[in-house]
Structure formats: C-alpha cells, structure tokens
C-alpha cells in the first residue's frame, strides 16, 4: 500500500514549493486552526506595518484634558492616565513586539542551527554543548531572562538578547535531534561514499532535511518571545519606559485597573491575540510538516 504517489507530470517547482510542496500547502489550507492563526498573525502584522498610517495621533502625545477616556468613537480604544491614545499605542506596540519577536527568532535561527548542527554532527562537541545548554535550561526561562536583562540594563536590545539566550538551547536541542536522525539516513552515506566533506554533507543533505522541525520550533519561539518581552517590560526590564510596549502599558494600567480597566485589558488582548495566532500557526505547521514532534512543549 505504498504506491499512492502521483506519476503525473508537474511544472518545475519553485524554491518555496520545494519546502511547501503542493500537497502540504493544500493540507495547510484545509487545517482550520492553522488558517485562523494565519489570519490573526496577518491582522497583527498589518496593524504593525501600517501603524504610522492608521494611528490617529502620536502614541506618546499626552493630552491631560482627555485622560481616562473609555473607548468611544473619538478614542477607539480609549486613553490612558496621561491622555495618550491607546489605539495608537497598541498599534505601535505591535511594531515593537513583532520586532523583538523577530529579532529573537533570527538569533535563534542562526545560533540554534549552528550549535545544533555542531552538536549533532560532530559528536565530540556534543557533550560540552549539550551540558552547556542543560545548564541554561535548568533555570526557569523567565527568571533567566530577568537575570540577564537586569545585568545588562533595560532596553529593547537587552530584551532581544536575553530572550535569545533563553530559547537558543531549546532550538539547538531540537535541531540536534533532527541532525542525528537525518545523519542515519542512507543518502548521507551515499554522499560520503561519493567523497563529500562534512561541510557539504551538512549544507546539502542534513540541514535542508531539518527545516520542518526548525520552522515549527521558531513559530513557537516567536510566540514565547512576545509573551516574555511583555513580562520583562512589565517588570521594567524590557523596552524603555517611553516606548509603547504592551508590557509597559499593562504595567501602567495596573494602578488604575478599577477606574480604567481598558488600560490593561486592551494591551492584554493584543498580546493574547498575537500569541494565540502564532501558536495556532505553529500547531498547524507541526501537524503538517512534522507530525512526529507532537509531544514537544
């Protein structure tokens, strides 16, 4: 029962379709929670990209006369204790959150792949690299991020670096496991028998076949990074207090939670929507690209 493959001729595949072959795309499109996640993520991205266009006012512009305005036609999502427009702040906050998340994802992609590939392929490095990652993973992730951020001083860049340090060991571990798995497949032996060197084997054979679990992992890292950035900023260890960060907004709203609950609820919902979107997206990708790793996380 193995020959359910298609034998019909096909057009030449593009780069994207090498990874997302036609049948995978079709399965993704039919995956309901993936599509919900995709729409949520697109929605947040559009808000972030268009923030300068759609914000009615400067997110940091204070208007003492219109403090604590509840959501209304004039102030779509209300205003805060300094009279700043929450809609503008949430929109600009999306930019900041996505930028930090993207930064963490990029650092994860680069260093996670590098360390994971080294540990999985060069077995002599495995011991030391994995003990190192064990040591980092022994700390609760947020605590570790707080520690690093506190040591380096609060800024958006600090948040990116500390969160990257937290998640890189996890990404590296997942990559290492895939490298170990792919390294056992015969086409790697075939390349070796052809005289290929280690770099060639890693680049052409092993890493391209580890992309599925990596993409899945990175989508989750993205979600965690946004959530953790909010935590850091809430604690005053993330973005600068003047930046419109969702975490800072919640932190500021905390004091007025009875009088102006929208000050905390609105950025909270922004975080929830983004993280939910990314998680649904990641679940869908995992189901379709990498059904084996269902037990992770």
């Amino acid at each position: 029962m193995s020959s359910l493959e298609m034998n019909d001729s096909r057009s030449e595949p593009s780069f994207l379709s090498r990874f997302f072959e036609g049948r995978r795309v079709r399965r993704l499109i039919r995956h309901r929670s993936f599509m919900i996640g995709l729409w949520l993520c697109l929605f947040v991205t559009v808000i972030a990209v268009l923030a300068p266009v759609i914000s009615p006012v400067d997110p940091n512009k204070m208007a003492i006369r219109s403090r604590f305005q509840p959501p209304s036609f004039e102030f779509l999502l209300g205003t805060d204790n300094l009279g700043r427009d929450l809609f503008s702040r949430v929109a600009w906050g999306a930019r900041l959150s996505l930028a930090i998340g993207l930064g963490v994802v990029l650092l994860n992609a680069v260093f996670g792949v590098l360390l994971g590939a080294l540990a999985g392929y060069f077995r002599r490095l495995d011991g030391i690299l994995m003990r190192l990652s064990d040591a980092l993973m022994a700390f609760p992730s947020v605590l570790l991020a707080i520690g690093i951020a506190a040591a380096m001083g609060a800024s958006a860049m600090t948040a990116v670096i500390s969160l990257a340090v937290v998640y890189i060991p996890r990404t590296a571990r997942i990559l290492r496991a895939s490298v170990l798995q792919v390294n056992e497949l015969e086409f790697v032996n075939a390349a070796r028998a052809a005289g290929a060197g280690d770099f060639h084997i890693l680049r052409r054979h092993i890493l391209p076949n580890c992309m599925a679990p990596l993409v899945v992992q990175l989508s989750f890292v993205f979600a965690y990074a946004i959530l953790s950035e909010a935590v850091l900023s809430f604690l005053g260890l993330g973005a600068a207090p003047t930046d419109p960060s969702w975490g800072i907004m919640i932190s500021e709203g905390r004091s007025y939670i009875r009088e102006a609950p929208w000050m905390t609820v609105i950025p909270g919902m922004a975080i929830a929507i983004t993280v939910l979107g990314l998680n649904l997206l990641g679940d869908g990708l995992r189901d379709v690209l990498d059904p084996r790793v269902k037990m992770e996380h």
Partner: protein
Amino acid sequence: MQKEPILRVEGLRTTFTGDEGTVVAVDDVSFDVNEGEIVGLIGESGSGKSVTALAIMGLLPKSTSQVTAERIMFDGRNLARASDREMRRLRGGSIGMIFQEPMSSLNPVLKIGDQLIEPIRIHERISYRAAFDRGVELLTKVGIPSPVQRMNDYPHQLSGGMRQRVMIAIALSCSPKLLLADEPTTALDVTIQAQLLDLLLEIQAETKMAIVLITHSMGVIAECADKVVVMYSGRIAEQGPVTDIFDRPGHPYTKGLMQCTPELTGNPRRLTTIPGALPSLSALPPGCRFAPRCGLAQPACEAGRPPMIGVGQNHASACIRADELVASAAQPEGAEV
C-alpha cells in the same frame, strides 16, 4: 458436493479517503476458504492483499476507509453485517491473526505470559492458573524451549523467530477455526522462515484449521498453499488449486511472477521480466489493470474489466486470453509471454 466453506468472501470492496482523494484499494474480491485448507493470497505491494485481510477482520480505521461486501460468511455468520461487539468476540476467538512484524505486534511492557493469558481469559471463563497452564502448553506446541521461564520474559528478550512463535501461540490460544497470517515470515531469516512454515503446516495438520496465508513470495506459496489467490492492483487476477496455478497459469501476471523469480536450477543469462511498474491506485488503467504491462494485451483488454473465466476445476482467471494461456502451458514449449 463440497461442504459449506468456512469463509466465503463475496464482492469485497474497500476504499480509502485521504488527501489525494478516494482510492479503491480492494475492488470486488471474492474467494472461498474451505475447512482445513491453506489459501495463499499472493500479490505485490498495492495489490490489496493485506487490506483484504484487515477488511475481513473489521480492523480498518472507520474514519478513513469504507468497507462494503455482498457477503462475508464465516462459520454461518455474515461478518459484513456483524456489530463491533460480535467482531471483537470473533477476533482472537474463532479467527486468529498473525502479522508481519513480530516486534510491534507484541506489547513491549507486558510479559509473554500475560499477553498469552489475556486473550484466553477474554474469550473463556477460566482461572488464571488454568490459563497459565494453557499458555505453557501452547508455547510448547509452537516449539519454544523452556516455556515456563519464557512466560516471564518480555518480548525484547526473544529473537524475531521466537516472537513470531509467540504470536502463533497467541493466535492459537482459543483454537480458532481460521487463521489469518499476514506475511508471517517476511521479516525473518530464511532458516527461521523454514522452521516457521514447517510449524504452521504441522499445527494445521493437527488442528485442521483453515489458514489464509498472505505473502509476496511464490516460494512460500509453493511450500504451503493448497489454493492460491493471485491479486493485482486490488483485484483478483487468478485463483485455483496450487499445482494448477504452477503448471498451467491462466493469467499472464501469474506466469510473469513465476518467471521473474530466479531459480536454483538452470543458468539463464537474463531474467524474464514484467515490464513497467505497478500502477498507482490513484491512476488505474481502464479495463484490465495488468494490460499496460502485458505482452499479450489486445485492444479489447483496455475496453472493460475482464470477467473471471473458468479454465479448470476451481481454477479461474481474469484474462480474456486465459484459455490460450492454459492451452499453451499444456504443451512443453508454449508460446512465450
């Protein structure tokens, strides 16, 4: 006139629904298994031979597959209409099963003894002690040395051949009337395969149970089967008594299968081959499914499904040129396929 067969399958059809749409894996398959008979079900990958067995047993996942049949009569009961509960009682009771993978069909965290005793106690109300004794007896019967100790072993402590013997013991535990063996020796080495086939024949001679032996190997068929059902692409190509099939194959596919297996006598430079590849189930040729690979194909072969033509006693072939083939085989140097 013969007795009523123990298993009569009529018009069995199985479809799978997946991402690529719906495929028909088994298409209108009918055959009989008489009491005490070994029926060999032979075919290559995608022929539907394993699916046939699973469909009879009601073991295909309901979410992705649909099984229909005019009738599946087993021991006077129509399995096509049986409830899940009835099927559960039959499986491991009057119908035993063995699968190809002796590792994955045993639960790795349970002792051999427990896996042997459990089905006995599900189907019969006897004490643990009595079931244990029966287990030891069965292990002895299937040729496992020091059976009492083995009852306390875990599957990983046994070799592949021994595990398959345990599987046979489990299948035999409730004295089934029918044993479905799906490639029971494929994963095993040739000396162990020989031991197990001998064992199956011995047990069959003693208990007179009927066996459906699913295999891809003509050699296994030649060793064991009384009757052969040849499957190709979800349909029956030919069925008949084993010597008739070997002496006078009535279907070009059967003939091709026998010719392309290298033999231990003679020294041909080249093997006779069947050109082409097995068709994909999602792109089946119209008419006879073997026609695109067949040396005898005529335009008529592509026109419609060839009917089963009787070419001897209990011997029928789904080939419009079956008579020619059988006649040519009767002469020593018949026309080549």
